[in-house]
């Protein structure tokens, strides 16, 4: 029951965040639209930690994460005038940051490729199996994944995008995303269990 309650709380938070922007967020976005640098700073202070973590997970190192974050925030400041609903600011910023991370990976010649359809059907499911491990062990295992798997796993597990959304972002099929996610999960499980 506990996992479901977490999920419900999370969904409710996302819905209320998107549908009912607080007056403070509204005002902050309005000030940013006027080009107020202090408002930019407030916006940065509000979102930079969460967005930096996305960059760090996606790029895998501090220097690239900081550069990507800076580029992404410049785009946020430059395009905030186009943001129609202040309530969707979190999702909007997050999408810009993720796009910058993906561009960074593409610049580093990371390609997201389709996997064989037959393989997809034969993929073993690890969903039902239990998982034992520590946070550090999982972190290390994720960091050691091939970039393609790591990207899919991060986008699904940490950034909470659907398989369909990820497929659109990476320009691959939804079944490939599902397969890569399952493989990534299995690899993490194997690496963690080896350390136990």
């Amino acid at each position, binding site marked *: 029951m506990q996992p479901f309650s977490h999920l419900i709380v999370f969904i409710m938070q996302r819905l209320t965040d998107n549908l009912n922007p607080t007056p403070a967020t509204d005002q902050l976005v309005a000030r940013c*639209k006027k080009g107020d640098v202090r408002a930019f700073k407030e916006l940065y202070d509000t979102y930079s930690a969460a967005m*930096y973590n996305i960059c760090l997970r996606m790029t895998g190192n501090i220097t690239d994460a900081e550069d990507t974050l800076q580029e992404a925030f410049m785009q946020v400041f430059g395009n905030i005038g186009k943001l129609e609903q202040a309530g969707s600011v979190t999702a909007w910023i997050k999408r810009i940051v993720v796009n910058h991370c993906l561009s960074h990976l593409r610049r580093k010649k990371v390609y997201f490729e389709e996997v064989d359809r037959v393989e997809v059907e034969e993929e073993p499911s690890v969903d039902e199996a239990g998982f034992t491990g520590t946070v550090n062990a999982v972190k290390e295992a994720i960091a050691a994944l091939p970039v393609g798997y790591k990207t899919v796993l991060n986008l699904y597990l940490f950034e909470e995008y659907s398989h369909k959304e990820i497929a659109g972002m990476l320009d691959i099929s939804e079944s490939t995303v599902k397969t890569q996610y399952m493989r990534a999960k299995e690899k993490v499980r194997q690496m963690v269990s080896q350390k136990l």
Partner: protein
Amino acid sequence: MSEHNFEDFIRQHRAGFEEQGPNARVWKGLEQQLKAQQTHTPKVVQLLKRHWLKAAAVLVLIVNSVMIYQFLQFKKQQQDLGTISPELQEAKLYYTSQIEQKLEDIRQYSPEALGLDSTARKELELRNDTYQLLEKELEANPGNERIRSAMVRYYQMKLDLLDKILEELQAKQPGTKTFNHHEREI
């Protein structure tokens, strides 16, 4: 270490996967970029960038208004006299073409032969101030016969004047060929 489903494990330990926020140098870099951007972009351009849609809408509105105004003025000029007095419009067309013909003939003489200074020659081209005044008067008083006849008389006088000038020029320089209507039409 209890046993979980993998996704549940991540959700339950989500906070443990988060690192501290970025180093202060990221904001410093952003601040510098923002400052550089603002100093390089003039205030007007910044405003236009921010309100480009409004600016475009205002521009379209102004252009449209000017075009509509010009179109209406043009239609008015075209239609006014024709609506008020079709006969007068016909007379205007006739006299205008006649006057233009005479002016063309006069233009064939050199300024020396013409014996008129440039101001006087310009006068000959005749800005139809008087006529335009009469036309406005007629618009205000469409039934006024005196204005109608004054307009016709104005053209006749102008034509007579040009005829006299041409006659004098021909008397002075008989060799110079001027064309009459029939010759042109043939």
